[in-house]
């Protein structure tokens, strides 16, 4: 059916594709093994465990601010034409006092000096150094490096950030936004190693040019799938030789490798192809289509929540006075106050310790531990495109990177094009997670890709390691077949002639 010349061409393509794709294929397999080993015993996975610094390095009372919140709102309206803000926060950083204004839930924040009113963002390295230095308990800044960073909470594609190397009790690297000094990501030795192997050898991303590297990645993956298809064709066509070669010629190097290559390829080649297709789907989510995957497509374009800049807010001194009886006794000053409007009432988020979630207090002085789900849903609805209808799904704690811990949250399913699940913090109405349908479909594919079938670490890792060894063996024997060495070549020539005669 197929001319011998064409079979020869297929063999040549299989050979050359195999040689050419050795580096990416071995890179995917070895990096997978490294990533598996790195995360194997990591507590809290890649998020890591950190002790956050509970207090600012210098005690500064918030009522020492010479400008009150209304002055900042006035400035936002007059100097920047901003009519509404999502929230306004007064906080101490080192010896500084800042007002941070969040114009919308998805925009970069604006920072003003609480004593002079001077605009401070984008924050210079000197101020970010202060922020980074007091982020982790017992930490100090070793180095700052400017970079850009993707983040699911912001509309901007890449945020200006610094990567701060922290020394001391908890060596780490912090990714801190330049707008307000917010910690967007924390990396420890394990997560840094994971990221390096993942980016360099698993998804082959060597810069921020996703389109370029993704094209290369997918071409390589398609090449390996083609390689396996050609391999199965050769396996089928060469079946007459197979019985001859394996019958009594096992002592010859090339034939030994060829037999092993054929068997490993037959077992592992198909799984490899399936894994490549699954991996390609996963990378679509984490790479080129990350925006819709992370729920950015559900950001409302006409958000009108928060409160008007014309609103009169309570002064820091008033708030401290109202909440002082409700806070646990401490010698340290309150670290931050945030003004929000939840429903129609003004609420204050009072942070006594930076490693704990703020207490939410209504302007009346009454604590708000949980919002009514209907109200939390309405707050979230304002932030979802088209302001669609929604249903209450339940409660589910969700990870909040700012505190590196899960927060109690309501889950709502919105009827937007992405069928987005929005998780809203129970006490503040803060949207802490968006999970559209696209993301919800991610789980099964990741399970298959990670061989996490049984949930038993030993069984799953043994399966994965066996598969990885089989693929590496396939690569090694493929090379041995192509380059059998001087001694092997003579024997091979005689054997090949004999086998062809037999066939």
């Amino acid at each position: 059916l197929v001319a011998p010349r064409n079979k020869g061409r297929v063999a040549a393509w299989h050979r050359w594709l195999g040689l050419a794709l050795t580096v990416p294929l071995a890179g995917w397999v070895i990096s997978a093994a490294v990533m598996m080993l790195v995360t194997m015993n990591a507590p809290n996975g890649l998020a890591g465990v950190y002790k956050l610094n509970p207090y600012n390095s210098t005690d500064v009372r918030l009522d020492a601010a010479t400008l009150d919140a209304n002055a900042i709102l006035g400035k936002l309206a007059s100097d920047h034409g901003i009519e509404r803000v999502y929230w306004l926060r007064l906080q101490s950083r080192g010896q500084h006092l800042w007002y941070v204004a969040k114009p919308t839930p998805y925009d970069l924040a604006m920072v003003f000096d609480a004593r002079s009113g001077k605009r401070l963002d984008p924050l210079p390295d000197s101020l970010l150094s202060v922020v980074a230095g007091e982020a982790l308990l017992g930490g100090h800044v070793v180095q700052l490096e400017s970079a850009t960073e993707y983040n699911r909470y912001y509309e901007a594609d890449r945020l200006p950030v610094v990567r701060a190397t922290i020394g001391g009790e908890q060596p780490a690297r912090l990714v801190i936004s330049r707008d307000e000094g917010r910690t967007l990501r924390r990396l420890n030795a394990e997560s840094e190693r994971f990221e390096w192997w993942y980016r360099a050898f698993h998804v082959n991303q060597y810069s921020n040019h996703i389109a370029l590297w993704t094209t290369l990645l997918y071409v390589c993956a398609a090449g390996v799938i083609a390689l396996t298809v050609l391999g199965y064709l050769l396996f089928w066509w060469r079946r007459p030789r197979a019985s001859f070669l394996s019958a009594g010629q096992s002592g010859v190097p090339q034939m030994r490798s060829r037999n092993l290559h054929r068997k490993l390829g037959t077992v592992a080649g198909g799984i490899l192809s399936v894994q490549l297709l699954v991996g390609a789907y996963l990378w679509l989510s984490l790479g080129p289509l990350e925006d819709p995957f992370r729920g950015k497509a559900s950001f409302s374009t006409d958000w009108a929540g928060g409160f008007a800049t014309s609103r009169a807010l309570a002064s820091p001194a008033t708030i401290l006075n109202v909440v002082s009886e409700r806070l646990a006794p401490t010698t340290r000053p309150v670290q931050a106050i945030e003004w929000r409007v939840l429903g129609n009432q003004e609420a204050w988020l009072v942070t006594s310790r930076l490693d704990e979630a703020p207490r939410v207090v209504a302007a009346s002085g009454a604590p708000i531990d949980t919002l009514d789900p209907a109200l939390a849903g309405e707050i979230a609805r304002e932030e979802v495109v088209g302001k669609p209808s929604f249903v209450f799904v339940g409660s589910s704690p969700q990870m909040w990177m700012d505190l590196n811990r899960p927060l109690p949250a309501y889950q709502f399913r919105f009827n937007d094009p992405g069928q987005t699940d929005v998780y809203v913090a129970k006490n503040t109405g803060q949207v802490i997670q968006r999970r559209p349908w696209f993301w919800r479909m991610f789980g099964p594919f990741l399970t298959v890709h990670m061989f996490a079938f049984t949930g038993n670490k030993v069984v799953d890792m043994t399966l994965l390691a066996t598969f990885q060894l089989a693929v590496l063996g396939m690569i090694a024997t493929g090379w041995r077949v192509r380059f059998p060495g001087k001694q092997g070549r003579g024997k091979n020539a005689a054997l090949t002639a004999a086998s062809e005669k037999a066939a």
Partner: protein
Amino acid sequence: MKEDPSVITPPTLAEAPRKGNYKRPTSFSRGDVAALVSGALLVFTLVSLLCFLVAENVMRDRAVGAGRPASAAPTH
């Protein structure tokens, strides 16, 4: 007398392949058959598992979608 190498002698009737005693070497070795069967089984299992997990996920997702309105939710 020396045989002329250019002359091709046709096989005798006794040497010609006959139905029943001719064995074409087209079969796989046992090892190859085992590899092929186990490979096919593994791929089948993997693809089935993926389909099962996706289907289960879709069903669970639909069940969640049929939730209650927020106003009917408990407040704690």
